[in-house]
Each structure stands twice: as structure tokens, then as C-alpha cells.
């Protein structure tokens, strides 16, 4: 009796080992931004969640989602993390990228929830503490990003003509340096850079309040050819992120430490910003609404018939159905 149990146990162990060893390792290149919403990706890499799923992940840290999208379309990446605007530009604007194949982009998931990602930081000593004070000033932000959209909403909300403002296309690091140096009068930047600026310039920085807070998306974008070339990669990738989200929830201090290490932003900033964001995989109606709204905005920006495309056609539901079906709330 005991020897039979031992045999069964041995066989099960062997089978388990064999099963594990039989997973094919898939290399994956992901383009990310040094943004607090990327914590899950760094956790998945650091804690081996990608490796557990048989993914050999290389992370490329870019200055913005715009850069990540370009690299995805140029074939340098398998996945790009970006907000709505770079994705829509990539889908809608044939001039946006050098190489523009027929768009076979697909959204795998939205990875964060937040209403307070974008901030408008001004120089207090210049007396810029009301919206109208920005007229005639220099404002820096990443063009065609969500910062661009947020600033547009801000101007609209306060009935300010953009022609009265000098806008500059700076990366977040350049924005911080420029504001400190006085090269610009205000910046529109995403977190953690906004709060970081407030701490870097405690006496000379001011956060401009808006009535319309910005609902952020942080999308995981790939191409449809990914599934053909690397079958199962999307599912494993989402599963890794799901584990990372659970880890973030259960290990807040470790997450802060890792974010500090990755972004090189001070801990006090990360602690504040961490309260503004949820790590959550979803394919929701909210995402559709925000993307559709972005389409209208792009149309206003001169991209013709931006609103004609159907967002639903660019969503790949299958990986999410496999990994977290309850996270899908889009009515299909």
C-alpha cells in the first residue's frame, strides 16, 4: 500500500516537472514609459512572473507612449504600452509613422484606472495661479499625447485661445529641467513627474486645478501578427500582469521601493502618486467611450474621419476571455 502511494507521488512529481519543462519560452519585447502606471510591468519582470509564464521579456524604457508606438509599428517591439492618443494616431494618421503598414494593431487590455494622471504645473513666482495667467506664456508638453488633450480641455474649459500661448514639445525630463531653469512657464505632464516638480520646486510651483479631471487609459497594444508568430504570448503576458496586480495590492511597500528604483523618483513622490492610481486589467465600456471621445478630438485636430473607425474592431478579446473574463464589460 505504501509503495503504491510512493509510486503515484513520484509519478505526479515527474509529470509536474515534465510539464513545467515542456513550456516553450517565448521572447517578448515590450516598450514602456517611466510612468507610475508601468509598475506592474516592472514587478512582473522583477518577481519572475513573466519567466514563470515562459516569457523572456525585454523591457525598452521610452520617454513616452508615442515612442513605444513608433517602435511597435517599426517591428522593433512586440508590445507597446501607451495612452489613447498615440494608439489612435497610429491607427488614423498615415503620416504619423515612417513605416505604416495596414494597421493591424490590437488592444489587449487597459492596465490602469485613474482620474488624476495629468497635471498642469506653473511657476508660482511668475504669478501664474489662474488659468488666464497662462496667456502669453510658454507651456511645454508632449505633443499628440494625453497631456496635449488634457491641456486642450483645460483651455476649452477656461475659454482660452491656444494661439495666445507658446507650446513646446518636450519630454517629461526636459519639461522638468526647463521649468526649473525658467525656460518654460508651465508644463503639462503625467505623474509622477507632476508631483515630482511640486517637490523639486516647493516655493515656485503651483498646480493648476481643472474642472475636468482626466480619465486615463494605459493600453497594452500589439499587432495581430503577434499571435501568428508567437502563439499564446498574449495570454501569458496578461496572466503575468494579473499576478503583478495582485502582488501590488498585497505588497505595497515592496512596490513603492521598486517604483523608486525604476523611475528614480523620490519615495515621497511615489507614495503620493500611488494613491492616485489603480492597477486593474479591463476591457470596459469606459475605455470605449474615452477612445471614441479621443476620435472626435482627433477629428477636430484635422485627422479626417477619425470618428469613422470602430474601436471594437481593434480589440482582441480572446486573451482577456482566457485570463480574466469578468474584466470584460464591453457590450458586444
Amino acid at each position, binding site marked *: 500500500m505504501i509503495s503504491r502511494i510512493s509510486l503515484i507521488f513520484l509519478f505526479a512529481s515527474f509529470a509536474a516537472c515534465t510539464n513545467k519543462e515542456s513550456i516553450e519560452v517565448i521572447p517578448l519585447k515590450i516598450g514602456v514609459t517611466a510612468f507610475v502606471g508601468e509598475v506592474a510591468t516592472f514587478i512582473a519582470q522583477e518577481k519572475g512572473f513573466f519567466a514563470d509564464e515562459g516569457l523572456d521579456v525585454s523591457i525598452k524604457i521610452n520617454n513616452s507612449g508615442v515612442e513605444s508606438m513608433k517602435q511597435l509599428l517599426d517591428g522593433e517591439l512586440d508590445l507597446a504600452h501607451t495612452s489613447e492618443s498615440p494608439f489612435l494616431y497610429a491607427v488614423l494618421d498615415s503620416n504619423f509613422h515612417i513605416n505604416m503598414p495596414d494597421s493591424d494593431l490590437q488592444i489587449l487590455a487597459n492596465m490602469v484606472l*485613474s*482620474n488624476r494622471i495629468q497635471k498642469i504645473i506653473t511657476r508660482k513666482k511668475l504669478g501664474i495661479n489662474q488659468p488666464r495667467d497662462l496667456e502669453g506664456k510658454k507651456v511645454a508638453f508632449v505633443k499628440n499625447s494625453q497631456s496635449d488633450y488634457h491641456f486642450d480641455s483645460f483651455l476649452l474649459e477656461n475659454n482660452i485661445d491656444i494661439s495666445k500661448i507658446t507650446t513646446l514639445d518636450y519630454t517629461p525630463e526636459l519639461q522638468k529641467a526647463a521649468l526649473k531653469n525658467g525656460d518654460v512657464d508651465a508644463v503639462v505632464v503625467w505623474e509622477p513627474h507632476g508631483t515630482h516638480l511640486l517637490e523639486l520646486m516647493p516655493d515656485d510651483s503651483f498646480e493648476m486645478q481643472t474642472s475636468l479631471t482626466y480619465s486615463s487609459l494605459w493600453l497594452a497594444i500589439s499587432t495581430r501578427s503577434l499571435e501568428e508568430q508567437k502563439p499564446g504570448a498574449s495570454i501569458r503576458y496578461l496572466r503575468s500582469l494579473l499576478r503583478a496586480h495582485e502582488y501590488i495590492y498585497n505588497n505595497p511597500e515592496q512596490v513603492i521601493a521598486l517604483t523608486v528604483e525604476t523611475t528614480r523618483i523620490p519615495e515621497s513622490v511615489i507614495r503620493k502618486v500611488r494613491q492616485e492610481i489603480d492597477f486593474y486589467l479591463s476591457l470596459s465600456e469606459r475605455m470605449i467611450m474615452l477612445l471614441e471621445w479621443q476620435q472626435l478630438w482627433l477629428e477636430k485636430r484635422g485627422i479626417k474621419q477619425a470618428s469613422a473607425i470602430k474601436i471594437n474592431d481593434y480589440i482582441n478579446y480572446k486573451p482577456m476571455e482566457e485570463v480574466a473574463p*469578468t474584466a470584460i*464589460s464591453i457590450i458586444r
Partner: protein
Amino acid sequence: MSVRFRLNSLVILTITIIVSLYLYVLKITSDIDNELAEIEKIDRFEENVTRLNLLMEYFIATRDIKYTNSLLTLINELDKAKDDIAGFDRFNLLRQSIPSVKKALNLLLKIENNPDFYSSEEDRIQLQERALVLIRSDLRQLMSLAFKTSRFRQANIRNLQVEQRGYILATMIPFILLFVAIIYRTQSQILNSLSKLRVGAKNLAMGNLDERIEIESKDEFAELATQFNTMAEKLESTIENERVINQHLESKTEELKMSNQELEQFTIMVSNDLQEPLRMVNSFMKLLENKYSNVLDEKGLMYIRYASDGAKRMKQTILDLLEYSKIGNYEGEKTLIDLNHLVDEVCALQARNLKKKDGTVTLDKLPRIVAHHLPLFQIFQHLLSNSIHYSKVNEPLYVHVGYEEMHDFHKFSFTDNGIGIDPIYHEKIFVIFQTLDSESSNKGTGIGLAIIKKIVNYLEGDISVESKAGEGTSFVFTLKKN
């Protein structure tokens, strides 16, 4: 481990299981109640978000500011409610969305109330639409998060139920196994011990005095076995002692028997040896009287008569001694004897003497008893003989035989109206060779009452006398019922 300890352990184990289960079920029920309460809160939250969504759509469709207060009230309620729902703190968006929706609503109201602020209608419309997009998307997200939290709580309930089942199984199975093991072991030990005790008692009852019971457990049964073994040892010892005593008794009885036989033989031999010379003396005295009565004077004839009388008395004494010695050695089986007939027999034998005394014998209805005929005959024979012998001169003799049935004895009385016996002699008269009639020429041998007493004692009874001089005599004797 004693049986009591094991049984107490079982009771404690049972109570522990029941109490633990009860407390655990209570806890799980309480946990599930808490989860259900949270779900109810979330449901109410969702309901309010839905109402807010509807109201918002009405407001958007109608731009009627009458909805404003309701909208703001609902938003404030939601803002308060979100802090009270466990699990909502996991989502920062829940904390951000409600103030965000409120700001967006205020912007819409500002646009409605200050149309001139936004000179471009296109810009005004776009701003309104951005506010609406924000509101709608945030409300949708709120509903989605509330739904997810509710599902999470439901999953918790399922997990609690699974945990409960698992815990009960994980706890109950070992407890039940332990319980069954203890019961089985206790039962086995009790039955095994009882079986040993039963077999031991049975063997002892069948006469196997070597039987001893070995029970190794240190419990009440071992104690019982020890007591049993002690009892068996004592019983064996007692029986052995009795056997030795019985052996001794048998030996003594055999000796006595032999002694009695020798005595009987001696008595017979002696009586025969004694009777022969007495017969010769008697015969020659008669011859002497017959042949030389004309030669002898009155004194000579008187001397011959004295000698003859002496010889006759000697003969009677020898016969009585012989009779006395034979008491208890009765041959043959006991038979059912009608004492009424037996007394008649005795009266018939003493008919001539009764007639001389003008005697009358009456009797109560006497019983029939199982005994040897001879001893009973001897009793009544000697009693009647004494009554006749010691009757009053010139007064008819009346004798009555009375009977009273006692529980374990037959009680007889033999009453006459003779000369009576002075109470100072009541003990003496039952001693052998004791007579009270020293001067009478017809005095008895003094063995009759001794013979009666010996016979009565042999028949496990007793005899006493009630009498006074000159007032008759009543002998009362008992015979044990068999």
C-alpha cells in the same frame, strides 16, 4: 487506563467536537452574514449609481436644472457610502470618481448658467460633451467596480462555504477516526475482559478451582480479575480444608461405625452371655422352689423369690440396655407411618395391663409421618408403659395423646393422671438407670425415658416434662418434619 477514564475521554471528545463545530459554524455564519451585509451595501451603492446615471441622462437630455439638487444629493450620498463599503478602499478610482463627477456636473451647470462665458458655441458644445464623457465613463466605471466588488464578496461567501466544508471534513474526519478508534479499542478491551471473566467464572462454577483470570490492563476489569482470583484462592483453600475435615470426619465416622458395630456385637454378645447364666439362675430357682418348697421354710421360699425377681430384673435391664444400644441403627427404608394406627398397636400390646388399671387411651388426630416404625413404636410403648406403671392406685387411668402441627416440627403430648413427678426430678428422669421408685417391687429399669430421649434426639426433636407430684404427668416431645 481505566474504563471510566476512557469513557470520560469519549464524553469529553464528543462534547469538544460538538462545541467546536457549533462555534465554528457560528463563526462562519457570522462571516457570511457580514459578507451578505457588505453585498447589500454594494447593491444599494450600485442602485444609486444607476439612479445617478439615469438622472444625469435626463439632465443631459432636458438641461433642466430641476434635476440639479437630486443629482448633487445622490453624489453626496455616494461619496459617503463609498467609505462604508469594505473592499472599495482597494480602488483609488472610487475615491476620485465621485468628486470628479461632481466637478464635471458643476462645469455643466456653469456652462448652462453662463452661456455668455463661452462665446464659441462649438467650444461650449465640445466642453459639455467632454464633461458628459467624463461623467458617463466614470459612472460606468463605478458600476463596474461595484459589480466586481460584489462578485468578490460572493466569491468570499463561496470560499467561506468551501473553507467550512473543508475545515469540518479536516477536523471531523480525524476526530471521528479518533472517536471510532477509542470506541473500538474500549469495546474490544471491555468485551475481551468480560469474556475472560465469564469463562473464568464458568470454569470455577464447574469445579475447576485452579482457574485464575489474567487481565493485563490496569482498569476496573483487572481489579475485578484480582478480586476473582483472590476469591478463587480462598474458595480452593476453604474447600481443601473442608475436604481434609471431611476426610477426618469420614475416618472418625468409620472408626465410630466400627466402634458401634463392635459395641453392638459386644452388647449382643454380652447380653447373650449375661442372659444365659440368668436363665440358669431363674430355672434353677424355679426348680428349687418346685422340688424343695415342702422342705424350705417361709424364709427360704422368700429368698428363692427374691433371687428369681433379681434375675428377672437383671434380664430386663440387659434387654433394655440392648435396646438402648441399638437406637439409631435401623435397618430398611423409612416408610409412611400412621401414628393413629401405631398408638393402637401399642395399646393392643398393653391391653392386659391397661385393663388391670381400668385404663383409657384417647388421642387427637395424629399425623402420618415418614420414619422407621421401631423408634416411633418404642416412644409410645415406653410412655404408655410408664403411665401404667406410675398410675394411681384404685383410680382409673386416663391417657391422652395430643398433637399440634408446628412449622418445622410435629409436637406431641402424652398426658396421664398418674402419680406425677416432683419438678426436682424433671432433669434426672431422662438419665439412664435413674428411677424414682426405689421401694416398689415393680420399679422399672430406669432406661425407658433415656431410650425415649435418645430416640427423640435421634429424630432431631426434643422432650420435656410437665408434672407435679400427685397431679399427673405430661410428656411433650417434638419430632422434626422431613
